[in-house]
């Protein structure tokens, strides 16, 4: 029984890494325009990248994976056209989940016994973030204005500066006592 429990402890850390691999694989596949033969070939070539990122979650392979995925997204949009709203929202959530699970996996070495409360809290937080982000993402995607207009670009720049200022403010504020 003890050995079984020990294995279960090990399995939690493994599960987090498997999630990183799964989200990474999905992040490679989702931006491709449809599951066609070239997509499958690309997936085969891209398969090692999520596995490597899952094995070494605290390495630069994770940002590399995110970068490759976004590059695929941009290139696919250039050749096939912008993706519809729902896949874009799903893809945004997927990228965040990949980032968050990789951050968790980086702090959980494989030899550790992981308390279930840790996973429960992380899952709750991720769910909350995705839930709050979804309407905001839809709002951004449905912004009025002609694509490429200076007005939209200016609004985007102001929004970016605002977000940056908010994050700086949060970082510099007095910590919670």
């Amino acid at each position, binding site marked *: 029984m003890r050995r079984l429990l020990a294995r279960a402890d090990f399995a939690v850390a493994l599960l987090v890494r498997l999630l990183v691999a799964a989200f990474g694989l999905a992040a490679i596949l989702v931006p491709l325009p449809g599951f066609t033969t070239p997509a499958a070939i690309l997936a085969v070539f891209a398969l090692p990248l999520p596995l490597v990122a899952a094995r070494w979650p605290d390495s630069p392979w994770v940002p590399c994976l995110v970068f490759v995925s976004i590059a695929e997204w941009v290139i696919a949009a250039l050749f096939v056209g912008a993706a519809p709203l729902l896949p874009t929202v799903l893809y945004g959530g997927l990228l965040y989940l990949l980032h968050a699970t990789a951050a968790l996996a980086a702090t959980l070495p494989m030899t550790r016994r992981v308390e279930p409360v840790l996973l429960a809290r992380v899952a709750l937080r991720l769910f909350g*973030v995705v839930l709050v982000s979804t309407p905001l993402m839809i709002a951004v995607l449905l912004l009025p204005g002609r694509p490429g207009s200076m007005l939209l670009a200016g609004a985007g720049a102001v929004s970016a500066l605002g977000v940056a200022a908010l994050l700086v403010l949060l970082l510099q504020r007095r910590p919670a006592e």
Partner: protein
Amino acid sequence: MFGRPDLAALAVPFVVGTAVALLRRPGAAPTVRLTLPAQVLAEGQTMEAAVYVETENSLDVVVVATRTDRWLGLKGAEASRATAMQAGEQARLPVSVRALRWGRHVIGPVIVRSSTCDGLLVCAAQVAAPQEVTVLPVGEPFAAVDSVPRAAGVVGAHRSWRPGEGGEIAGVRRFSAGDRLRRIDWRVTLRAREMFVTATLSERDTDVIIVLDALHEAGQSGGIDGAANSLDTAVRAAGALTAHYLGTGDRLGLVEYGSRLRYLPRMAGRAQVRRALDWLAAVTVVPEGTDATVRLLGPRVLAPNALLIVLTPLVDERTTQILATLAQRARSVVAVDTLPPQARPDDAGEWSDLAWRLWQMEREADITRLREAGVPVVRWEGTGSLDLVLRDVSRMAVAASLPGAAR
């Protein structure tokens, strides 16, 4: 700018996630402490230590890693664990350790690494200082028949060779003033028509000095559950001998002969048992040091009339020479062979086996020479190991004390 609002939309969860995480930014690092219910254990005993982690702020991931000496068996799952903590929470993480071998061992340090804000903020490692645990040796109980060569104290449990009040009959002698009436031997008295009394030997205590050869550690130690190496056998045997001789009221001292010379002065009583076991837990093989042979053979360390029990694997020429020298000085000395039967060097080539056999033959020859010189050599077998040789030593001590005995 590129007419791609989807790229801005992809950044939204990251912004929200970071903002939510930073709202719970902690202000202080968690504190960690290690508490032990006891500092002293016996071999094979289990102890449940506890690691307390306290935090004032919410932490996403708290990884607690406990390191211990290899002889404090720590369950792998308990050695390190990860949990999450809320603000103001105190987590108690039990750490169960089992003392696998005698000695002074260390539990800790306990290292706590924590991160929060989705791994954005990582706290510097917090460390709880290691603590020392003394593991006392546990050997099989030892008992010996009452035979020590020079019982020379005042009162005690051993038969001495001096006449006096005791239980051991020495013969009959003429009645003299002061003799008790119940000592009169009526049969002899009637035959001789003169008063005769039964003469007895007095019972006295003795000095016992146990010398542990810590020049080398022969064999691999498997702890309490595995095979014993030479030092394990020596220390456990010394523990058993200590309990036996101090239990019979003798004065007992301990000497560690190695690259350092360490000794526990001779004393009697129950407190000495505890002192001796504590002293034994600190026995170790020091790789380098000065030759302690001259100091060991000096009168200050080895009392003249003490029974010397040398626990040695007999793998070093220095020990053999010391034993021979002691026998030459007519000291009551017993050598206890602690070399484990399974101890042998690693196979280093085709000549290893032959070299090993030659070495064994040389060792056997040395043991034979020691026996010829008057040093009984016996293998440690627990209870009754020394009975036969102690009788021999007693006889030799009596013979040596007779007038005209060759020195």
